[in-house]
């Protein structure tokens, strides 16, 4: 049993795995949906890339893992590709015999035709097998290039696909930049990039990836300054849609900063964080919407809304003081649901608008400047984020911050050391509620309305995921997490239908590959590292061979 399986068996296994993943991608409807969506006009569509990607990737991974001589690696890659084709071929064969479509809605004749290159059945399947073997071999070939070029190549491939995907967005933005506008027709076709455009993006991003520059410190400083300037100018440069996306990202970053205090610093798992977001938005609505006889302005209502949020943080904190871990999770989750149900209910409709929500909520106005539009609200959000980052980073190193961390690490020991767990926990909940409430008021101002369905459980999960992806307890991590988990899906809105599918897969993959997050907090990384050191003592090859089963 100790003997490793032969490389061919591993290749076949990986091939079958890649084929299964490809098949699933086909059956989820992704291939057909993007069948017309060219990345490079007339050459390759997103749909094709999607079903080829697993084969290419596993071909590459296998070559990397086995570390074989060039010819052998290519052969292994080809075998992987071929066997992934076998899975698809079996599926096509089955589709000829049975009407799979009555169960699997996406198993349409068009899909079969696409997979077999619109050829007849037998030649089509053969062509597909050959083609996928080629893709597998190409994946393996990628490993054979020297490492520093390989990195640049992979980067260039990703950037090219991204450029093709974001064609509409990039060309819309480029239009507003006078001198580069003529480049649009040169780089982009009606759908996707032109061949020249693709080559340009590929070479540019490849070259950038290849170059390593050592910059003097002052250049770095100037560049950061420039970045800060651009951040200030972003809404002007990017237009309404991207400003809207930035606003949404900003709101989530604000909430993330707050939840980071509760979960990241104090270690209290809160799954109902959306409650405070809702309370902030609704308090703002009740106080400022003329429909509900609110007469205050945004700035007058803000302190009241925040006070209400902090108080509700205390109210939630009280009963859960003695609870730990999972009990806390379910109770906070319940709290989030209770708040949503209450704002939705007919019972409170006269005061909170019920199903019909609240409209015409006030937005911030300073002097003559109205911060109502998405582009203007951006500045308010940025300002609040800066304040929140300041508070959070000061808190982190303060006495209170250290008390939170002590509680997180070991509550019993912390108590024994004389830490008052009651006030400490309550303060964590209240601070978290404060930030979420702030986000809520801005959210209401952005939409100028509040509807119960905006405050689903999903929001809590999104915020929690972004701080974990970013790196728990890490403040820059929250910003990166927000950009990655909230910003990126907004840019790739075409994938809206598959958003949660991809989202789920990314969460799992991320936790398996890099559980400490994108920008880990030093202390947590250390903890995880300890765990890893233990894990490494397991026999390595066996764990890996299992990956294909």
């Amino acid at each position: 049993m100790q003997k490793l399986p032969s490389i061919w068996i591993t290749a076949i296994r990986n091939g079958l795995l890649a084929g299964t993943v490809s098949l699933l991608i086909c059956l989820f409807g992704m291939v057909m949906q993007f069948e017309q969506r060219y990345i490079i006009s007339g050459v390759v569509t997103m749909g094709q890339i999607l079903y080829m990607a697993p084969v290419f990737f596993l071909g590459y991974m296998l070559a990397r893992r086995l570390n074989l001589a060039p010819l052998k690696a290519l052969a292994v890659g080809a075998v992987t590709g071929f066997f992934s084709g076998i899975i698809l071929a079996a599926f096509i064969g089955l589709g000829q015999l049975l009407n799979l479509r009555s169960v699997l809605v996406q198993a349409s004749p068009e899909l079969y035709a696409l997979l077999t290159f619109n050829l007849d059945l037998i030649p089509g399947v053969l062509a597909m097998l050959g083609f996928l073997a080629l893709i597998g071999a190409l994946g393996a070939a990628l490993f054979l290039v020297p490492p520093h070029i390989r990195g640049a190549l992979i980067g260039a491939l990703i950037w090219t696909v991204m450029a093709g995907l974001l064609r509409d967005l990039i060309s819309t933005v480029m239009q507003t930049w006078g001198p580069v506008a003529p480049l649009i027709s040169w780089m982009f076709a009606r759908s996707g990039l032109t061949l020249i455009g693709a080559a340009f993006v590929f070479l540019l991003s490849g070259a950038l990836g290849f170059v390593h520059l050592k910059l003097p410190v002052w250049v770095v400083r100037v560049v950061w300054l420039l970045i800060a300037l651009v951040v200030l100018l972003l809404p002007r440069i990017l237009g309404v849609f991207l400003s809207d996306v930035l606003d949404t990202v900003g709101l989530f970053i604000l909430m993330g900063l707050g939840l980071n205090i509760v979960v990241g610093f104090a270690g209290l798992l809160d799954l109902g964080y959306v409650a405070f977001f809702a309370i902030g938005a609704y308090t703002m609505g009740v106080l400022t919407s003329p429909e509900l006889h609110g007469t205050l302005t945004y700035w007058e209502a803000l302190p009241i809304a925040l006070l209400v949020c902090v108080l509700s943080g205390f109210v939630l904190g009280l009963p859960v003081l003695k609870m730990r871990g999972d009990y806390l999770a379910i109770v906070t989750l319940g709290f989030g649901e209770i708040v949503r149900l209450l704002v939705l209910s007919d019972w409170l409709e006269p005061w909170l608008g019920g199903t019909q929500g609240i409209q015409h909520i006030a937005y911030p106005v300073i002097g003559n400047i109205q911060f109502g539009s998405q582009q203007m609200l951006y500045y308010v959000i940025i300002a609040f984020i800066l304040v929140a980052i300041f508070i959070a980073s000061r808190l982190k190193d303060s006495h209170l911050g250290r008390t939170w961390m002590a509680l997180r690490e070991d509550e019993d020991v912390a108590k024994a050391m004389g830490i008052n767990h009651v006030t400490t926990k309550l303060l964590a909940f209240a601070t978290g509620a404060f930030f979420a409430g702030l986000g809520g008021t801005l959210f209401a101002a952005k939409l100028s309305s509040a509807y119960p369905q905006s405050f689903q459980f999903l929001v809590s999960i999104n915020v929690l995921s972004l701080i974990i992806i970013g790196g728990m307890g890490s403040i820059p991590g929250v910003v990166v997490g927000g950009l990655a988990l909230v910003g990126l899906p907004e840019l790739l809105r075409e994938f809206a239908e598959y958003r949660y599918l991809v989202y789920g897969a990314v969460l799992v993959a991320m936790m398996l590959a890099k559980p400490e997050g994108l920008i880990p907090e030093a202390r947590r990384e250390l903890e995880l590292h300890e765990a890893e050191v233990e894990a490494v003592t397991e026999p390595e090859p066996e764990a890996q061979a299992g990956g294909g089963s």
Partner: protein
Amino acid sequence: MSKRVFVLVSMLVGLSMLFTACAPAPAATEAPPVEGPTSAPAPAAFTCTDSIGCVDIGPTDPIHIAYLLVVAGPNETLGVDSRNGIEIAIDDAGGKILDHDVKFDGEDGGCDAGPGQTAGAKLAADNTIVAVIGTSCSSEARAAEPLLSQAGFVTVSPSNTAPDLTEAGNANNYPGYLRTAHNDKVQGAVAAKYVYEVAKKTKAATIHDGSLYADKLQAVFAEEFKKMGGTITAQTAVDPNQTDMSSVLADIAAGAPEMIYFPIFQPAGPLIIQQARQNAVLKDALLMGADGLFSPDVVTGAGDFVEGFHVSSPLVTGADYDAFVAKYTTKFGKAPISIFHAHAYDAFNMIKAAIEKVAVVDADGTIHIGRQALRDAMYATKDFKGLTGVLSCTPTGDCANPTIGVYEYHKGQYPPELIWPK
């Protein structure tokens, strides 16, 4: 790694600084879109005189129609179904309007104000778009419509029913907005009239599911019903994902109404039918829904209990509709999954007809569409024959055919039988 990212970011930043410095100060959103980015220079002397600008479409360029529907998340059947309806309409048109391909894509609005606004902002930024079909939900419309209207588009919703969207003088009635779905005021009143005058019931109860649509519709129904002289014994609500309806039915049964009006959706609808029929007090009450429950799944979902269940719905039966359903089933592998596919189909065809009416076609095939002209043509739609009946638009954008029928379900039969008006 981080060094490389840094270099890349700084170069991009540098580039963008350069561009912004060179660019003429980018116009804010208020500027009306003037020309499509892909437009060829017009050879003939076409000058755009439209008050809010024109779309120019080059000889080989497509006509861009976008959707803003809920196509992801728990409410997606509503939007996906509408989108399927539009795709069939495009197929029926041979994929072309005025010999130009139709480019059809769009955004998910999530049936919620937040995502709706973002989607609206995205569409508004694309000035090749001629018209938008959407939104699915009224809350989305309120958030997205300011942006879409500002961008000069025509928007036709297949499923918004909230009265404020087409109420003259209301802040939520935006120029360029029309709908092929029924204003709740129309449908609620017809349902009340049927129940009181035809079915002769005087005690009714209503249930909504927390959606804007159902809540408004039941409110209109209750108001009209009371006006006619009927009594409303209870106005209650369920959660759309709730499956056990026993407590809401117990609440209703305490008032012993003769009928229950629940203009809600799947899956709560069939569950209410089934559980009401098993309730000792309510088993003989008249059960009535609205077009949200005009679906084959109701027959299977409620099983034998479906017998005698009424729905109010626009008159969508007929040979044309049957042919539509057949095409739908072939193309998507299953029967329509929700209800507003026919409305969406009509929305596309109305837009198509209006474009054909107002477009100026040059000799080389370039098309110019005046945005205000298109809006005017849309509002002037009269006696347009669609799947949902003969449509005429009001000046505020209500285009749905006001004739509403009441249908009765029978065990194992779909579509239900039209019982009123005969």
